[in-house]
């Protein structure tokens, strides 16, 4: 029986010592952009646009493929898309390659981000 406990401890230690473990909690994963609500009261329901979040990176998928980094602290999120123009990220509900968001809601299933440009609703996919 001791051997089993030792094995389980080693397994647990190995799993918890992942070099690339999740560091962003619920924010990690593939998010499907469901709705973009603009400041002028208009809105869009995008067709298969995604934010992919892992470690320190975010990748946009569905229109122009964009990659960048982000910083997350409390209920604020700052996204920095590299090597792209503002026009490339407009489909994703951003009006600049650097955008600050207020995290209105974040759970394992839903996320709502708010910027000075738009309100973005996501579901985990």
């Amino acid at each position, binding site marked *: 029986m001791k051997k*089993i406990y030792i094995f389980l401890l080693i*397994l647990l230690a*190995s*799993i918890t*010592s*992942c*070099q*690339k*473990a*999740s560091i962003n909690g619920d924010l*990690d*994963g*593939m998010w*499907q952009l469901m709705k973009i609500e603009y400041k002028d009261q208009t809105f869009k329901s995008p*067709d*298969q646009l*995604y934010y*992919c*979040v*892992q*470690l*320190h*990176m*975010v*990748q946009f998928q569905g229109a122009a493929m964009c*990659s*960048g*980094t982000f910083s997350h602290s409390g209920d604020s999120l700052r996204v920095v898309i*590299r*090597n792209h123009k503002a026009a490339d990220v407009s489909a994703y509900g951003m009006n600049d390659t650097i955008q600050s968001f207020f995290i209105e809601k974040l759970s394992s299933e839903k996320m709502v981000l708010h910027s000075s440009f738009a309100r973005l609703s996501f579901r985990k*996919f």
Partner: protein
Amino acid sequence: MEAEFGGTQYSNGKTFKMPSKLKDYLKALVPMSGGKDTPVSDQANVEGNQVGSWHFSLNYKLKGWNLRAYYEHYFEDHSMLVMQYPWKDGMLGFEITPPKNPVVSGVVYEYIGSKDQSGPVYWDHDNVINEQISARDNYYNHGFYTGWQHWGQAIGNPLFTSPIYNSNGQIAFTNNRIIAHHLGISGKPTNEIKYRVLLSHSDNWGTYCMPFKDVKQNTSALVELTYAPAKMKGWSFTTSGAMDRGSLLGDNTGGMITIRKIGLLTK
């Protein structure tokens, strides 16, 4: 671990022959990077399509009962072989074999999750973003080979939608991000009659590269009854009915009658 190696790729009118010398056979057994006669990706990683899985199993016997719990972790690359990324995917199973009785001779429950695949981002570090993320494992697909399939049918995991179901002729897995549950019950009410009931339900997200617009569901069921008369040694007669319901494979219903003879027909 298993490997696909050697062979010839036919793509867009061009052919590429993979090496199949003795050293290539050895590299199928002990994964190593490919030589100059292999694709660039094989030179940077390992030669051929290498996959594998970890298996853990725990058995417990108690007064005629046999209880077994098992966990299987599938991997497609080095990073998931050695737990560089969290093991969020895997198959967890429980098997119960009760003492001999006329109602149930075995029950199995399995859960499988393959949604994570190391994560949703793939990035080779460069001067702009100095981060290496080797995720999006894209289970059962491969850049050079036609994936972990044989004649269009998935090898090992029937819940990843097999390429044979692709209506556009593409030889690739279009659905490898799933969460599924499976329940199986078997019994032998008499010495001549036995039955099997299987039920599977899956939620399906497609792949990271080509996600479905909405999650697709599928429920499959099979009921099977076998009669093996004691007077007709070696003969058995099986009838079974099966169905699929849901948005992944559509609604399908089928039946099968099997007449089986074990041994020589003349005896």
